[in-house]
């Protein structure tokens, strides 16, 4: 499909800026493994302090990269399937809002005034521009949904008997989830935190802030994951040389995510006060519910790949796994996607453990936790984002991928690094190693009273994994920017591979309309969150004043 210069420019910026920021984001990922293994026994290195870097790492990799990509990939998907570009002004409005937010937050973080981590729990206070930046990033990302809804309604008028394309359904459901869940964090930031950090209000209810954040925080991970699922359902089967096993399975999975992505947030608060065991258990059960669409996906994608393998002549129960384009440089998306799926096996299984109520006591806030989530957000999500960013850019610009053979190896190197890293982190976590901690200054410093020799092997494994991943990521940066700097070889086009379905079931109206699901989503949300918020209200005591990261004495004046 031919697209306008404006479309190409805004998509280019939305893909390339986050990838460039990844240089900082991934640099500090490596640095953390270096500090934590006790290679450094200091609080900062090269003018960046550990917790400042940790904040940059989380914000860049898990908020900026993911949000910009979801928006860009959404524009690309909607445009390609509907053969119509989204509204030009709104595309640019969304971009400028998001970019302004990023610049504000980046200033605050780099100036050392927002070392509060990407969860920014009060009453640890950041500079108001950090919170404002976050709010702008979110509001900017709301804009596309409304434009796409208009595009969708227009398409529906002409296509009443046709199924909504699966990729379109996924995009719309993903952004509906995003819009609903971000309302809570937007309220937290705009109503609770900014006035408090500016000194207009003196205190904040920390329990309420946390509960609102986690209303947002779990659905956030599905906002990350669903674009990757769209790739797995609608692009991967085609690239692998097969068909999507069941189109309907994809739709059922997407609607289940719509229902269960948000009303589960309290599973991040199992260890919190003010919320009752009953509400926590209920959220745990709902979380098991949200695991179901992932199991459906695992099987459906496996069946699709089995179909592809058998098309290529594979025999036996598992022969199909071998007969897939693992190292075919012209089908590099396969390498990235399959690597993400391999990691997600472990990421998903450890996620179910985390969700399992009392089992959470064993793992919460230990190194196990980043061990888990690097196999999800830094697994299929990250690999899908960078692969599709490269793919979309190369198609839109008419440039060939730089160093295509190396490109195909990167995801496998990443998998090896990640498995070593996550094994070290998980093992360390089970030995009590905390997350979010500069271990090098104390627990991994042999001269310190707190030294823990049993965390030496575990942090060394994480370091080894971190180094391998850093190398893989830097290779990708070279390939991405090498592609940008290379010469245009053909006309730039908007093109995404589209998989056919093996079971291309007839349109089922229930799985092709939003209203009943939106109603159900809201009902479940109310059942899950009204009790939680009532708990918080009933059991909370005094509200908290402002605290800076370096001072136990609260800040009473309105100094920034």
């Amino acid at each position, binding site marked *: 499909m031919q697209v306008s210069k404006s479309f190409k420019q805004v998509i280019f910026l939305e893909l390339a800026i986050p990838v460039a920021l990844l240089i900082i984001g991934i640099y500090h990922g490596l640095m953390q493994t270096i500090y934590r293994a006790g290679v450094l026994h200091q*609080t900062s290195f090269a003018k960046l302090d550990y*917790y400042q870097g*940790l904040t940059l790492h989380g914000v860049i990799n898990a908020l900026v990269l993911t949000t910009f990509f979801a928006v860009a990939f959404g524009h690309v998907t909607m445009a390609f399937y509907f053969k119509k570009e989204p509204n030009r002004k709104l595309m640019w409005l969304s971009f400028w809002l998001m970019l302004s937010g990023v610049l504000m937050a980046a200033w605050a973080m780099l100036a050392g005034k927002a070392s509060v981590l990407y969860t920014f729990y*009060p*009453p*640890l206070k950041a500079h108001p521009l950090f919170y404002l930046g976050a709010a702008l990033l979110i509001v900017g990302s709301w804009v596309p949904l409304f434009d796409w809804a208009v595009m969708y309604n227009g398409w529906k008028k002409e296509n009443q008997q046709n199924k909504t394309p699966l990729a379109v359904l996924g995009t719309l459901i993903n952004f509906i989830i995003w819009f609903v869940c971000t309302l809570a964090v937007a309220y937290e930031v705009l109503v609770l935190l900014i006035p408090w950090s500016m000194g207009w209000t003196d205190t904040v*209810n*920390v*329990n309420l802030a*946390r509960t609102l954040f986690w209303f947002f925080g779990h659905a956030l991970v599905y906002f990350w994951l669903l674009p990757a699922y769209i790739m797995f359902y609608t692009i991967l089967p085609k690239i692998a040389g097969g068909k999507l*096993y*069941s189109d*309907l399975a994809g739709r059922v999975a997407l609607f289940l995510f719509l229902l269960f992505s948000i009303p589960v947030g309290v599973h991040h608060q*199992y*260890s*919190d*006060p003010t919320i*009752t*065991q009953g509400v*926590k*258990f209920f959220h745990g059960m709902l979380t*098991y519910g949200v*695991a*179901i669409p992932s*199991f*459906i996906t695992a099987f*459906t994608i496996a*069946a699709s790949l089995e179909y592809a393998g058998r098309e290529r002549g594979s025999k036996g129960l598992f022969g199909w796994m071998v007969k897939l384009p693992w190292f075919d440089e012209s089908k590099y998306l396969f390498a990235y996607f399959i690597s993400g799926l391999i990691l997600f096996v472990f990421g998903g299984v450890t996620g179910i453990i985390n969700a*399992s*109520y*009392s*089992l959470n*006591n*064993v793992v919460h*806030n*230990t190194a196990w936790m980043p061990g888990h989530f690097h196999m999800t957000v830094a697994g299929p999500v990250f690999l899908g984002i960078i692969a599709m960013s490269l793919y979309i850019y190369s198609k839109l610009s008419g440039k060939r991928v730089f160093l295509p053979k190396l490109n195909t190896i990167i995801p496998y190197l990443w998998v090896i690094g990640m498995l070593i890293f996550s094994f070290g982190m998980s093992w360390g976590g089970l030995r*009590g190693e*905390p*997350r*979010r*901690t500069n*271990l090098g200054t*104390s*627990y991994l410093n042999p001269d310190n009273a*707190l030294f823990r020799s049993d965390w030496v092997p575990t942090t060394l494994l994480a370091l080894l994994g971190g180094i391998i991943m850093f190398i893989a990521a830097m290779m990708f940066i070279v390939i991405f920017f090498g592609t940008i700097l290379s010469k245009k070889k053909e006309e730039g086009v908007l093109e995404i591979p589209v998989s056919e379905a093996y*079971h291309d*079931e007839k349109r089922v109206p*229930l799985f092709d309309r939003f209203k009943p699901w939106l109603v159900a989503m809201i009902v479940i949300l109310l059942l899950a969150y009204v009790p939680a918020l009532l*708990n918080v209200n*009933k*059991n*909370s*005591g005094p*509200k*908290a004043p402002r605290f*800076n*990261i*370096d*001072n*136990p004495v609260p800040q009473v004046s309105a100094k920034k």
Partner: protein
Amino acid sequence: MTIDQSEKKVVGITLGLIGLFVFSLLYAKGKYKTDVPVCLPYDKAYTEPKINKLDEKTYQVFSVAAMWQFQPSEIYIPVGSEVDFYLTSKDVVHGFNIAQKNVNMMAVYGAINKTTVKFDKPGVYDIICHEYCGIGHQNMRAQVIVNYPEAR
């Protein structure tokens, strides 16, 4: 609506797996009392650090987390005792993790958390802060010393 046979089996197996997990969690809760922390309404009585000996084998610890220490920081307990830990924070959010005993709680300003542990084995148990709480976070550790003569 025709749902593929294999997909139906997959959903069935998944539900079975979930059922197994739920049963196991409830069984452990009944038999071993494994559970998430107990919810208490706020009471400022718990904001002063204290160790209360209720009897020979029953203790209460009012633990107050602050930047960057737990008070009390050294808690001596006879082996075989049951201890109720009550937890709050004087400032930012802190973590409270006794890894070898499934104790995992968040210390939050304006809220009281609680869990109960039985210390069957002597030893020194670290209480580690595992939530970032500012520049002193990596030094924030207390200890429960259970009949461990060498540590005295």
